């Protein structure tokens, strides 16, 4: 009798451990987003970034809804939508780099023996800070633009970059300046990593960037219906 109880207890304990492990494993699989590995500080930064991005997306949704309503209203009144389409066309072309653009912004002047990766890092940070149009050495940046070459012989789109390298960005000047120059930010990192390189950030009331010379129309890729 006593042996029987002991056996049942053994099975119960093993079953309990088994249950706990099954739940733990299932949760581990469900949490395959890697979030379980992040510190509270990283998660807080992630929340802030996602909030900012979602606000931008909500604004875009509102803009598109307004655009659609205007189109539908014009059509219901028998009015041509040419003005709306033209406006949409210019916005897309300016965003993608096919039209020269201007507006408030900043100029970043990089002096010294700077590597291509540092210019790439600065451009990346400016994009993250919300720059709407940019140029490097007077060459408009599009999605495929890459600054390449060895230190002292950098080039962008086949155009040689001389010292100092100048980046112009159109966007919210205080926000862009803050993104670059915050403590431990990209300017501090670049200057700390390459001792002879200096980075100067100048706010501009009017920053101008040219249109790209690139033909951006795809040749090998086809639009997916």
């Amino acid at each position: 009798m006593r042996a029987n109880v002991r056996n049942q207890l053994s099975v119960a304990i093993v079953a309990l451990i088994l249950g706990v492990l099954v739940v733990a494993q299932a949760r581990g699989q469900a949490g395959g987003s890697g979030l379980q590995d992040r510190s509270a500080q990283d998660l807080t930064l992630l929340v802030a970034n996602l909030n900012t991005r979602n606000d931008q997306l909500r604004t875009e949704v509102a803009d598109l809804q307004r655009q659609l309503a205007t189109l539908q209203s014009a059509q219901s009144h028998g009015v041509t939508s040419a003005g709306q389409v033209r406006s949409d066309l210019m916005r897309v072309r300016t965003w993608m780099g096919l039209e020269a653009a201007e507006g408030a912004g900043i100029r970043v002047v990089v002096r010294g023996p700077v590597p291509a990766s540092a210019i790439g890092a600065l451009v990346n940070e400016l994009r993250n800070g919300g720059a709407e149009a940019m140029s490097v050495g007077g060459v408009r940046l599009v999605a495929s633009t890459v600054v390449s070459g060895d230190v002292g012989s950098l080039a962008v789109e086949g155009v040689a970059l001389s010292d100092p390298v100048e980046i112009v960005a159109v966007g919210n000047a205080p926000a862009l300046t803050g993104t670059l120059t915050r403590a431990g930010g990209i300017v501090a990192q670049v200057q700390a990593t390459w001792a002879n390189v200096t980075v100067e950030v100048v706010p501009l009331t009017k920053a101008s960037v040219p249109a790209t010379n690139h033909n951006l129309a795809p040749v090998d890729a086809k639009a997916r219906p």
Partner: protein
Amino acid sequence: MSGLWARLRTFSVWQLILFVSLLALGFLITAQVRSETPRVQYTTQERQPLIAAVTDLQNAQDGLQTQILALRTQIQAAETSSEGSDQLVRQLNNQLLSNRIAAGLVALEGPGVALQLDDSVAPPAGSGAATDYLVSGEDVRAVVEQLWLAGAEAVSVNDERVVPSTAVIDIGGSILVNSAYLVGPYQVKAIGPADLYQNLAKAKGWVDFVQARATKFGIRISIASPPSLVIPAYAGSVSLRYARPVEATPAPSAGTSGPATSP
């Protein structure tokens, strides 16, 4: 064989249950231990609400992106619906469509290269920090840049389309592309000419990258060259708050820059 059967019959039911349970326990313990990644595990309680917030925000983002793509389709349909009656609108619509394709606002299909970047499974050695063995935003940016230089026409990272406003950033051990939170392994896809793979493989920048990250720190890089792959449309904002076109001259030619003609 009959001896083994006879011996098995001497076991009671509870012994068999215990045996099977312990077997399962062993499997589960192994699975649990293996599922522990090299990244640091944190156990503080305050993280749970933050994890829930990130998950909710990411879900909201997915919903907003779907909404944006649907609205763009509706707008395009509304814009083209009046083309039959208006030559100018038809012309503008054709230009708008070809510019949207070139801008990354339309999904593309074609031959190309698919790469996968994954954290090293090798334990951190004497040289370098533990993070050197993990895929970083800088790694992803380097690969994207090498693909552009090799002639790619469209690139995506874990299905986030790379467009003029795309930033790839690190937050702790996470990578954000277009501010979307991505989880490794990171898949970078590119559509381009038939020799895209060959161009990439022989590029000095690519060879240097592989040596610096795969050879030295064990970052796992796999590469394929499928005959056809799909790169999704960019589902983010194209609104401009600060930049305006210098010459507001409409009706330019598709996909190229240059002065436009007024209708």
